[in-house]
């Protein structure tokens, strides 16, 4: 049961990440490959404030959201100058910059040594040291992010960002400032990713830059493509599948010498099969 609780916590964290990324990529059509950077900023902000300054987790989480929001605003302003392939490349560049910052700003982040000993949350006499309590906390955050995402998507703001995805020039003709909408959703997505980063840092109790590299951004994109672009339910299903699948494969009885390699092979083959028969993902409205 503890193992399932552990996987459930990871699902909540990646569920938040996939919901937030889908708002940007799926609903707005901005193919951003910088999401792991915001995930990392949230994680590092929480880790540093908890270990070096002694903040309470929830305060550190809020500060992490603010810091991530500011960084996302600046990056979003620059990214708004670009479109399509150039947008992708530029966002990739930002992920690389943030990764390099985490790796090289050793006085702050301890560089490749990472930050160990990150504490678990506690507040008002309730502590989240046990996995079951941490799961409850994670589920609460996931539900909150889901409700917020649903509200955004179903609002007039949500209709505007979907219209941007469909035909940005057309909506501009009607007087919509599309840069404003794209920037706002980019910042909102980043702030949500920061929440996931805070939860991750506290749960694993150790972070290092390798967790927030470009590979993680690509993995998050894979989650939402698999689950379905522009689908909140799809985001969660995608996270569930891609978190569970490698762990499920541990129970398949491959010979010990080749088990690890076979799991990677099977994992890849299953993803390819899923994409062949469901190219739009499980719940996707459209495909890129």
């Amino acid at each position, binding site marked *: *049961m*503890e*193992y*399932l609780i*552990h*996987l459930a916590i*990871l699902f909540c964290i990646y569920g938040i990440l996939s919901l937030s990324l889908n708002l940007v990529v799926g609903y707005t*059509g901005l193919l951003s490959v910088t999401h792991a950077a915001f995930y990392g900023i949230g994680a590092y902000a929480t880790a540093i404030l908890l270990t070096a300054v002694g903040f309470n987790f929830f305060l550190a989480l809020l500060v992490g959201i603010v810091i991530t929001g500011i960084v996302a605003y600046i990056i979003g302003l620059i990214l708004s100058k670009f479109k399509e392939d150039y947008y992708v490349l530029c966002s990739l560049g930002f992920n690389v910059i943030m990764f390099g910052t985490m*790796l*090289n700003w050793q006085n702050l982040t301890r*560089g*490749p*040594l*990472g930050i*160990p000993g990150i504490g678990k949350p506690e507040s008002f006499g309730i502590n989240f040291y046990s996995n079951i309590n941490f799961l409850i906390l994670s589920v609460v955050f996931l539900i909150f992010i889901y409700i917020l995402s649903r509200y955004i998507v179903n609002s007039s703001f949500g209709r505007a960002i979907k219209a941007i*995805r*469909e035909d940005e020039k057309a909506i501009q003709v009607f007087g919509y400032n599309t840069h404003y909408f794209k920037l706002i959703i980019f910042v909102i997505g980043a702030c949500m990713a920061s929440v996931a980063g805070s939860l991750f840092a506290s749960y*694993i*109790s*150790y*972070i*290092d830059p*390798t*967790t927030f590299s470009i590979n993680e951004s690509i993995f998050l994109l894979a989650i939402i493509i698999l689950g*379905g672009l522009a689908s909140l339910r*799809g985001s969660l*299903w995608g996270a*569930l*599948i891609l978190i*569970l699948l*490698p*762990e*499920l494969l*541990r*129970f398949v009885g491959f010979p*010990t*010498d080749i*088990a*690890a*390699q076979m*799991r*990677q092979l099977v994992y890849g083959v299953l993803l390819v099969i*899923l994409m062949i028969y*469901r*190219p*739009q993902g*499980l*719940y*996707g*409205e*459209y*495909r*890129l």
Partner: protein
Amino acid sequence: MIKHMKNSPKVWAWVVVVVVVAVAWAMFRDNSEVAQAKPLKIGVILPLTGDFEFFGGEIAKGTQIALEEAKAQGWDVQLITEDDQSKPTGSVNAANKLIHVDKVEAVVAAIHQQIQPMAPIFNQNKVPVLATWDSNNYIKTAGDYIFTIGFSTEDAGEKMATYAYEKLGLRRVAVISAQDDWSEIISTAYKNKFVSMGGQVVMDDKVQPNQKEFRTIITKAKNSNVDGVYSPLLPTTIAPFLSQAQQLGLKAKLMTADSFSMDEVEAAGSASEGVYFSNLYANDVRTLSGKYKSKFGSEPADPIFVSFGYDGVRTILEAAKKAQKDSVSIRDALTQVELQGTDAEIRMDGRQYFEKKEKLYKVQDSKFIEVR
């Protein structure tokens, strides 16, 4: 190009649900089977895929050799090997699975990058984990259930610094390290020791772990008029570094660390001549190499790696001889282990670590010559 698609995901979603339920059933079914017959379960967490797979597989084979010998001696022991994909999250997932699903009594791991994220899990669940390659100040103080019989990273850096200052007479060095935690620890130890002895670290730069192009940084070192360059880089990057240093005419004494292997010497060719390095060693690998060849049909790529797995499992079994079949008593017994390992005689003497010290070598005529 945006193409709208019809939705019919329910079948797929139910497929996922069925698979999840099946696995959950498999997990709990395995637990009930375990209750009936309970061998000693030892977990092994290694990077079998990803950036560190070059040594993970060899260490795993060492554990398999030890398992075979243990069974021949009458042990009722089961080895469960999990891949951590060379990632912290992978290590955490593997640790959780071994502890909560497989209910292992102890775990064998290898390196610092694994121990850091896993340490809280093992301490919290009172299951001992034994690092077999790395030993450093973090691992030695990571908690009551963290053990190591590895080579001291800090000692390797300090030993090289001392040799550089006292024997090679170096006074101005450049340190070029990789952005990797092992490289960070060993280079920091080197720098601190070298400076404390009166030397000067003129240049201190970092490169990407898998970087292969060093000309700019080598030129910078050359222009700094250093008399020595310490470059504890990762495997497969040392050879290009040395070759480029030779091409650019860098005359400083070159020093590196235990990523330097015969493969690197062959790849670097004449550029490796005269390079000093600290390295792992084993007193007798011929016997173990013979066992490897007998079981797997070929020579080991590096018998030292095989010895890590081999000695790791044997150390756990040695503790289990004097303990009840539970993780807490195995943990206590580990502190009293005395065992003739492949690398050295392992004596814990009441501690949670037995630190092996690397030796210093020089490449001469494409051979490793020990220097003191």
